[in-house]
C-alpha cells in the first residue's frame, strides 16, 4: 500500500459479495481490491457480520440426520492429521495479489496476453459465464476504445494509472461504472497500465474499428 487508494468499491457490491450474490468475475475484482485495501476489507467484514446475524437467526429446529455429529467426526477422522488447511501465504512483492495469481497461474509475467492492436493486450480469465473478467494492458498514453456499457463494469488498476471523466485511478483504485457512464479511459504517462476489468454485458464500442474487431477479439 504505497499510494493511498481513493476510489473504492460501493456498498452494494460489498454486500453482494458478502452475501454470495456476485458473479465470480466481479468477485475476483472485489477480492483483489480488498487484498490491497483495508478500508474495504473492514466494510466487507461488516456485511459478512450481517450474514452471521442471519445465520444465527436461522431456524434451529431443523432436524439433523440421526448420526450427523458422528458422521462429521468420521469426516474429520478421515482427514490426515497434518491436513489442516492453511491460509495461502500473501504475495510477496510483484504486481498481482494472491486471488488474482490463483486465476492467472502466476504474477504479471505469467499472463497469456492476446494483442488487440496499438499495443493494447488482453487476457480473459476463466470464470463462470454470467459475467466476464479480463486483464488489460494499455501502453502509457494510449486510449482505450471509446465505449459505453450495457451493464455493470468494475475496473481495478494494478500497475500504472488511467484517467477519465471520473478522475485519476492508480494502483488499487477501482472504478465502478453503471449503464449510464460513457467513458474513454486513457493510460497515464509513466509505467504501462495493467488493469483487471469485469463486466456482465458485452462492451459496446462506438468507434468503427473496434466494432469491426469485436467478434474476433471476443469482447
Amino acid at each position, binding site marked *: 500500500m504505497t499510494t493511498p487508494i481513493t476510489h473504492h468499491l460501493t456498498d452494494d457490491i460489498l454486500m453482494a459479495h458478502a452475501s454470495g*450474490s456476485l458473479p465470480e468475475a466481479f468477485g475476483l475484482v472485489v477480492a483483489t481490491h480488498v487484498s490491497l485495501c483495508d478500508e474495504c476489507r473492514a466494510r466487507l467484514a461488516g456485511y459478512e*457480520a450481517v450474514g452471521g446475524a442471519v445465520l444465527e437467526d436461522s431456524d434451529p429446529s431443523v432436524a439433523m440426520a440421526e448420526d450427523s455429529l458422528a458422521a*462429521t467426526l468420521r469426516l*474429520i477422522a478421515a482427514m490426515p492429521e497434518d491436513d489442516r488447511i492453511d*491460509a495461502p501465504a*500473501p504475495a510477496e512483492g510483484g504486481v498481482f495479489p494472491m*486471488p488474482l495469481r490463483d486465476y492467472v497461474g502466476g504474477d504479471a509475467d505469467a499472463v497469456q496476453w492476446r494483442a488487440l492492436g496499438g499495443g493494447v493486450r488482453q487476457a480473459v480469465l476463466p470464470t463462470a459465464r454470467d459475467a466476464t473478467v479480463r486483464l488489460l494492458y494499455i501502453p502509457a498514453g494510449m486510449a482505450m476504445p471509446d465505449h459505453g456499457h450495457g451493464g455493470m463494469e468494475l475496473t481495478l488498476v494494478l500497475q500504472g494509472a488511467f484517467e477519465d471523466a471520473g478522475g485519476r485511478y492508480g494502483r488499487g483504485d477501482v472504478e465502478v461504472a453503471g449503464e449510464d457512464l460513457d467513458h474513454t479511459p486513457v493510460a497515464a504517462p509513466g509505467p504501462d497500465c495493467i488493469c483487471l476489468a469485469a463486466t456482465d454485458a458485452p462492451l459496446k464500442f462506438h468507434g468503427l474499428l473496434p466494432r469491426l474487431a469485436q467478434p474476433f477479439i471476443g469482447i
Partner: protein
Amino acid sequence: MSERQTADTRWVTCVTRIRDERDQTAFARLFAHFAPRVKAFLMKSGADAALAEECAQEVMATVWRKAHLFDPERASVATWIFTIARNRRIDALRKQRHPEPEDLPWGPEHEPDQTETLALQQESEQLGRALQALPEAQRVLIERAYFGELSHREIAAETGLPLGTIKSRIRLALDRLRQEMT
C-alpha cells in the same frame, strides 16, 4: 473472563479449544448450535434436505480444520461459519468459486487481545438484535439477499443496520495486525 462471557465469547472459547486441544466436547457444543442453523440456511438457499445435510456436515468439518485461522478480533463465530457455509453453497448450488482476499499473515505469534475480542463479540450481538428489531419487510429483504435469492443488481446496501461501529472496530484490528507485521 468468566464474568464477561457472552454467548458469542463462549463460542470463541469452543473454537480455541478445538484449535489447541482438538476438543471433541467443544466441537459437539458448536455442532449442536450451528449445524442445524447451517442446514436451515442452506435449505432456505434452495438446497434439498439431503444436500443441505451433506453440506452442513462438510461445513462443520471445515470449522474443525480451519479453527487455527479464526480471528475473534475480526469476526464472531457465527459470522465465520456463515462465510464457510456461503462458500460451500456457491460451490454446491452455483458451481462457482467465491474468490477470497489474501489474508493478513498472522500466525501463532498473534494472540488475539481479550478486550478487543469481547468488544467485537458484543457488537456482533448488538447487530443481531438490530436485525431482529427491523421492520419485518426490511428484515426479510436482508435475509433474502443472504440466502442468495436476490441478484447482485437487486441488492441495495441500505440495510438500516448500524454497521459503522463494527466496521470501525475491524478496521482498528487490521491496523494493529499491520503494525505487528512491520
